[in-house]
């Protein structure tokens, strides 16, 4: 329910908001979270727990909330597993429980069996594989919280890179104070301040009622910051609703800003992203993330309306909400008295139970005693009662003896409808640990603090164990000074002393883990996963003693809250049971994400079409106009085939291939990698990286080359042209371009720096149009008048400079099809123009554009390999029957040569490239089929297989064991997949050159 308006409430009571929760309509105010609005409406049962299906309500008010998981909205805005505490209320919000607290739940139904289902239950049951296979799915069906979304997200996400000198994480008093100190004492340094909450101020906002001076400080500081921000927007950025979720090496911090959780963005500027993932790289980080409260442990501590004390205060002071009339506040430190004071200020009476027996002269207690409320000092809550919601608690005397707690036997029962507990504070050290920092246990503050800090970071405020807000301010200032020092600005930082505050309310007593409480049932540590103290005990008893084993055996801290409230208590319990100090038990590893990050926000805009660059040649539009289907090769979109209306791929390829063989075909070869190689040692360099000889290649000529890696395996191939003695242009495969280029640079820079050679990538500089077919020469003569195309003048494997349709061009007479062919290279900007001209002027010869599929057929007919299809990184030049390309007398041991002589590379059972001709010419072997021996074991496989239109029969290339010695043999290809029709296909092993074995076609007709 709401209390009467207090001036410090952060909600706007004039703006009423209607929302729906679990199919009921409720009202809240602007500034509310879903959690505060639900509490205001007295909705206290929100979900069920993971394992036992227990009904649960809110425990906290922030990210640490373990229970209140919500499914928000529908359709493309449906969002699973949000914490009610992180959803800002908006008009029309529609939410439901992740798992409904209403109705029957199987998990709760089997309650009597819970005692038989301890931690590790499933490891001990359903041990028969067959049984497990049967039951697993029914068990599985019970798991999980929200349903998965079913529709695509309607929103977008964005990444933004930031650079600054200082990042301050957390805008509580410590963070604000640090920010002011840095800004006021530097000139140009850029500062970014982030906080996951909607407002600046942190915890102090919920402490306003009890401290006026704090309130004044905050007001004026925030005002100052705002002024600064206006005047220096270039050096000061403030991001609210922004969670730093990961801290990577060298101060790279990822911050997720929530623009909206699920609210429609329709009324906003077009395309507002739902969330922005800020990539922040800074020189210095100041961590001021505060502390999370931890609860006290007692039986049935998971009933609803058992909350954290600070959270009760936050609901009250920030939202004007309290969820009970009759609260009890229970804890082991003086902040419980502050909570009580806040309640009294709001005219709510309460009782306080302080576990510490020595509280007789506690000033906080004394102050309250005068206000007439009942205070039990030296008492502990041992059990809560109530069905679902707390109704009363049992208390008993608490005794601290020999550094250990125990509870007495005299039980007293107290009625209440709300229990606020505080077991101390867990500094939010999470982020600090993401990039390798370790924590240590600090006995003074009874908490884990960050140990040795790496350079370029500071920790201040509650996260550093500093106590009250005044100290946090001083600490923020101090750490800012050290930051400035590290930046070289403040040479002699004057560090102010923290008050040795005798009235420090955050002084906590040691963890309250008496054996008699630990041994009780239903003392929950991790509420989300239903991990209890007895689970930890079982884990230890069974030998899972490391805290990491305890975590994994019990699932403690595995949930969406990552154990923010439960883990440290769990460690305390483990320490007690193991008889070890907390420091030896240690924490589990803190990992990103500090709180959940949407996959969409991780991906940013790098999805859909932008997932990976799509690269197009300059001729692309023309291919689209020609109706091409595309094949993606590397990042390139290459025409695959050009179906005419009604044609399927086979018909189109048939037509395209015949055109190239009988008249004219053309294709876009621009995607091949092109590397300009220049320098006095260019020849020597080529000789070292290719297997064949390059010393004598004359200017004006081209040569095919094969490249190996040091393992002796084929890595790439392509044609290089000699421009002059110092200048070559190399081509690589489309997919291999980048890796070849960087490998070549590596050789030059790291091994052969004595060679004078320069490499430049010119792939994008040229467009290449290949003109292929017996009539190619006729067409070339039309296209280009300043080059002589006669057979003797312009020979195969030569190139000429000329003018094609008015454009400077380098024309290469090379062929990947066996036909007479020319490749016209022009500056890329003219590519489209030349393509269109060729197509227009080639009409006379029925010139036919063809794509990669026909290219593959044409080259296979000639037995030319495709690196990556006919080879797979484990094939040598000898294996593909290309020993002819291995220069014998090169003085330099070219890349890969040494490996050719090692044992496994000279064995005779290696797979070798051969041709296969099916006995039945009409049968096309499916690619990837295997050749088998008598025992039906694989002795090879088919790498390429097509129906050859010109030969009117099927052809295939295959890797066959010792294949080169089996030419003429008959082998069996066994089809083993039903969908391909189980059969055995007899084939003749043949040469891999099927068409024009003597190479007569390469000069064309005439």
């Amino acid at each position, binding site marked *: 329910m709401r209390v009467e308006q207090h001036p410090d409430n952060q909600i706007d009571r004039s703006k009423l908001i209607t929302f729906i929760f679990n199919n009921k309509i409720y009202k809240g105010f602007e500034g509310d979270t879903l959690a505060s609005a639900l509490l205001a409406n007295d909705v206290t049962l929100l979900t069920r727990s993971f394992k036992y299906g227990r009904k649960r309500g809110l425990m906290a008010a922030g990210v640490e909330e373990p229970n209140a998981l919500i499914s928000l909205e529908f359709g493309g805005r449906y969002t699973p597993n949000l914490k009610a505490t992180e959803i800002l209320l908006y008009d029309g919000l529609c939410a439901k429980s992740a798992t409904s607290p209403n109705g029957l739940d199987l998990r709760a139904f089997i309650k009597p069996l819970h005692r038989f289902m301890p931690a590790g239950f499933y490891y001990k049951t359903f041990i028969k594989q067959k049984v497990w296979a049967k039951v697993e799915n029914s068990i599985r069906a019970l798991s999980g919280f929200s349903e998965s979304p079913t529709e695509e997200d309607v929103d977008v996400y964005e990444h933004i890179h930031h650079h600054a000198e200082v990042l301050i994480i957390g805008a509580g008093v410590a963070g604000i104070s640090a920010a002011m100190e840095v800004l006021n004492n530097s000139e140009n340094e850029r500062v970014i301040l982030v906080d996951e909450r909607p407002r600046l101020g942190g915890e102090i906002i919920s402490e306003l009622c009890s401290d006026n001076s704090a309130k004044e400080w905050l007001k004026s500081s925030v005002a100052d910051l705002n002024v600064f921000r206006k005047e220096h927007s270039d050096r000061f950025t403030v991001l609210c609703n922004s969670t730093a979720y990961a801290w990577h090496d060298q101060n790279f911090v990822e911050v997720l800003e929530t623009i909206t959780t699920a609210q429609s963005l329709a009324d906003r500027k077009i395309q507002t992203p739902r969330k922005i993932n800020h990539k922040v790289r800074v020189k210095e980080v100041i961590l001021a993330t505060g502390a999370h409260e931890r609860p006290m442990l007692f039986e049935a501590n998971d009933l609803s309306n058992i909350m954290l004390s600070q959270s009760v205060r936050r609901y009250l002071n920030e939202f004007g909400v309290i969820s009970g009339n009759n609260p009890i506040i229970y804890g082991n430190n003086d902040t419980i008295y502050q909570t009580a004071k806040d309640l009294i200020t709001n005219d709510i009476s309460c009782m306080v139970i302080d576990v510490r027996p020595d509280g007789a002269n506690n000033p906080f207690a004394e102050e309250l005693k005068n206000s007439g409320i009942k205070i039990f000092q030296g008492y502990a809550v041992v059990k809560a009662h109530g069905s679902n919601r707390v109704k009363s608690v049992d208390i008993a005397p608490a005794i601290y003896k020999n550094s250990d707690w125990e509870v007495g036997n005299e039980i007293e029962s107290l009625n209440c409808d709300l229990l606020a507990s505080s077991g101390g504070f867990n500094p939010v050290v999470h982020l600090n640990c993401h990039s390798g920092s370790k924590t240590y246990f600090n006995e003074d503050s009874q908490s884990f603090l960050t140990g040795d800090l790496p350079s370029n970071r500071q920790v201040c405020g509650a996260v550093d164990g500093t106590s009250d807000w005044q100290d946090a301010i001083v600490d923020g200032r101090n750490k800012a000074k050290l930051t400035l020092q590290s930046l070289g600005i403040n040479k002699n930082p004057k560090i102010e002393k923290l008050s040795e505050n005798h009235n420090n309310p955050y002084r906590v007593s040691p963890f309250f883990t008496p054996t008699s409480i630990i041994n009780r049932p239903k003392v929950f540590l991790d509420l989300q996963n239903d991990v209890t103290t007895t689970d930890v005990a079982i884990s230890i008893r069974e030998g899972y003693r490391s805290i990491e084993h305890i975590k994994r055996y019990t699932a403690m801290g595995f949930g969406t809250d990552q154990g923010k409230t439960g883990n440290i208590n769990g460690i305390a319990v483990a320490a007690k049971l193991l008889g070890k100090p907390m420091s030896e038990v240690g924490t589990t590893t803190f990992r990103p994400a500090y709180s959940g990050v949407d996959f969409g926000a991780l991906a940013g805009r790098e999805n859909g079409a932008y997932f990976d660059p799509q690269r197009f040649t300059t001729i692309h539009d023309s291919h689209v106009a020609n109706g091409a289907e595309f094949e993606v090769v590397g990042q390139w979109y290459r025409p695959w085939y050009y179906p005419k209306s009604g044609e399927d791929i086979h018909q189109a390829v048939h037509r395209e291939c015949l055109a190239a063989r009988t008249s004219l075909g053309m294709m876009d070869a621009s995607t091949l990698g092109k590397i300009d190689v220049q320098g006095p040692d260019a020849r020597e360099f080529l000789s070292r990286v290719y297997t064949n000889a390059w010393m004598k290649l004359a200017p004006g000529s081209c040569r095919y080359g094969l490249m190996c890696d040091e393992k002796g395996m084929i890595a790439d191939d392509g044609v290089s042209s000699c421009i002059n003695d110092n200048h070559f242009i190399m081509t690589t495969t489309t997919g291999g371009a980048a890796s070849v280029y960087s490998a070549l640079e590596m050789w030059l820079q*790291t091994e052969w720096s004595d060679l004078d050679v320069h490499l430049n990538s010119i792939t994008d500089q040229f467009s290449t149009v290949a003109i292929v077919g017996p009539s190619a020469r006729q067409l070339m003569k039309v296209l280009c008048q300043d080059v002589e195309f006669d057979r003797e003048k312009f020979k195969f494997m030569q190139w000429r400079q000329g003018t094609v349709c008015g454009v400077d061009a380098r024309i290469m007479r090379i062929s990947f099809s066996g036909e007479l062919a020319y490749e016209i290279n022009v500056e890329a900007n003219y590519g489209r123009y030349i393509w269109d001209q060729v197509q227009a002027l080639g009409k006379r010869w029925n010139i036919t554009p063809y794509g990669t599929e026909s290219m593959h057929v044409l080259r296979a007919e000639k037995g030319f390999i495709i690196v990556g299809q006919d080879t797979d990184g484990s094939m040598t030049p000898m294996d593909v029957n290309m020993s002819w390309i291995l220069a014998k007398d090169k003085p330099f041991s070219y890349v890969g040569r*040494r490996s050719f002589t090692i044992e496994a590379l000279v064995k005779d059972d290696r797979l070798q490239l051969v041709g296969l001709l099916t006995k039945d010419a009409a049968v096309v072997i499916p690619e990837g089929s295997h050749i088998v021996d008598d025992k039906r074991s694989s002795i090879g496989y088919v790498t390429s297989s097509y129906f050859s239109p010109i030969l009117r029969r099927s052809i295939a290339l295959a890797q066959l064991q010792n294949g080169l010695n089996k030419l003429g043999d008959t082998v069996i290809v066994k089809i083993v997949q039903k969908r391909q029709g189980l059969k055995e296909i007899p084939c003749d092993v043949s040469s891999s050159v099927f068409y024009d074995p003597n190479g007569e076609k390469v000069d064309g007709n005439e």
Partner: protein
Amino acid sequence: MFLLYCPYCNEEREQNEFSAAGEAFIARPKNPEAISDKDWADYVFYRTNHKGDHWEQWVHANGCRKYFIVKRSTISHEILQVEPFGTEISEQES
């Protein structure tokens, strides 16, 4: 993601501009034919894979395209030293 200093650009850049290019000081044998299969395998495959301060090669692939050597902790990812390629390193780890 860490920052690397490119000794050629004289500037720190994000790691995604660079490619890791393996352990440093793996020199190609001068005369491969003269060495044993074992020594050849050593050059091609075997690595120190040092845990601790590790010398390695990086290339500023999306920048100046130069290779250089870096001493980096493989435990903390801290960059301890960056040198242009060919710099003589005296304290070379074995």
